[in-house]
């Protein structure tokens, strides 16, 4: 009885805290208004409206978002030094795109926390051989940077609060190499339909709720033709895997706070 009582008291606390957290979560706002500045994104705080904290709002807002390809939460239009046409480089061939693999340019994604912006060197590597577009204003601008040996001051589009640790490497390994999903699909889980954009804009919420909806789904650990990575015993012991009718092992993503919060 005692134990039950304590539990419920604690849960009340949790409700209140998680509830208020949730409202602010999309704007990466912490519970405590005191923590601001360094660790936490300040401007986000200004933006957030601190309206109703009903759990239901939260549930519908975030779990509704889990569905594919919803573009209702488009981030701010960020002005970039060069209006880079993603659709031209990564878009489908029938729409005039080159279908370049995302990781050709964002080359660190498979081995680092960040996907990385290609160095000017990389752009030039191709463009010095593409005479047809040399006189286009954007390309001229690119060569100006190259000649001046200056890095292009690209602005961030997708940004996570500084207290979050997100690893591109883990997700790329998990879904592209282990599960054999197509690259653009996997990147699109979080970045949306970048192949249809010029400069990238944020399409997905990238809030904690957004991450968690995916983490609590049962994903196959290996797919046909996929390479198993890591110790299978690890998945059994840690993630309480399911084995479905067709024999595919499934597991949830990690749900431990310290995995993502640093």
């Amino acid at each position: 009885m005692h134990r039950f009582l304590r539990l419920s008291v604690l849960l009340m606390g949790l409700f209140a805290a998680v509830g208020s957290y949730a409202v602010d979560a999309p704007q990466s706002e912490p519970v405590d208004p005191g923590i601001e500045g360094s660790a936490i994104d300040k401007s986000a705080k200004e933006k957030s409206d601190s309206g109703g904290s009903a759990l239901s709002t939260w549930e519908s807002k975030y779990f509704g978002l889990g569905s594919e390809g919803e573009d209702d939460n488009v981030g701010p239009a960020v002005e970039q030094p060069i209006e880079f046409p993603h659709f031209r480089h990564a878009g489908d061939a029938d729409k005039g795109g080159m279908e370049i693999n995302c990781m050709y340019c964002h080359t660190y994604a498979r081995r680092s926390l960040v996907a990385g912006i290609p160095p000017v060197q990389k752009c030039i590597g191709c463009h010095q051989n593409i005479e047809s577009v040399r006189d286009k204003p954007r390309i001229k601008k690119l060569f100006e940077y190259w000649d001046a040996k200056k890095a292009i001051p690209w602005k961030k589009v997708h940004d996570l609060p500084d207290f979050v640790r997100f690893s591109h490497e883990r997700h790329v390994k998990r879904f592209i190499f282990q599960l054999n999903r197509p690259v653009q699909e996997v990147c699109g889980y979080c970045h949306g339909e970048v192949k249809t954009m010029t400069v990238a804009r944020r399409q997905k919420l990238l809030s904690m709720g957004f991450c968690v909806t995916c983490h609590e789904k049962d994903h196959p650990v290996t797919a046909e033709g996929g390479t198993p990575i890591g110790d299978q015993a690890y998945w059994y012991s840690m993630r309480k895997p399911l084995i479905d009718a067709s024999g595919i092992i499934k597991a949830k993503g990690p749900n431990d706070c310290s995995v993502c919060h640093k």
Partner: protein
Amino acid sequence: MSISTLLENYSEFRHFHPVDDVPHNPYKWAMSIDLDACSGCNACSVACYAENNLPVVGREKYLHGQAMHWMRIERYWDEDGREFPDQGAQFLPMMCQQCEAAPCETVCPVGATNHTPDGINSQIYNRCIGSRYCSANCPYKVRYFNWYDYPTTDNVWPAEMNQQLNPDVTVRGKGVMEKCTFCIQRVTVAKNNAKSEGRLVHDGEVQTACQQACPTSAISFGNLVDPESRVHKQWQVQKVELDKDAQTKDKEEGGSDLRGYRILEELRPYPSVMYLERVRETAI
């Protein structure tokens, strides 16, 4: 996690490791500190400042007990009334003991501090509301509260100094509790590398900042589950068991001659740090 998962699986999130739960697998991070080797030089403490973005609070706030040293060296004197401490002083590196049934975890009203499957008592800064209950309930007094906004209003890291900050560790703002994390950022990197190579973390692959600096190698850190790890062997030889609140060896003949012990074990927090007693020569 969604609130519904949290509700459904509440007991899973609020357990007493490893007493009424499955044993840790494949990792349980633990430490052992040899007090006979420790010279009390403070290198560990400074290394911790460097690794974990600890603010220097200054004279005034230190006076008020607001120092933020996650790792501190405690100094004790013999208490037998001799005029001179002719057997030296006793030094004790003290930091979060990463208790298995951590008293701090149960009192957190928002679940900001909880146990990881690796057996580390994690502190989630953005979840913390600064009630300071955890600190009040910690028997070791190793939790430190941000009474001030060190990065901004206090300007602890003025221009250039801020370039030293470790990007793998959050810079904490005002109103947040913090403590030793067993350098979880280093553990995470090691686990990530191991996972990419389809293996477990080797013993010695990850070192905490204090361990790496320690000039006398008094600190060992590793995976208690791994029978090959140095820490596992040390705990085994010293017959210190993680899930006991009184060690069997203490009741055995000669068992108390083994140097391993845990501080305030009788309070049943099941700490993950084993200390090895300091030795003093009898012939002199």
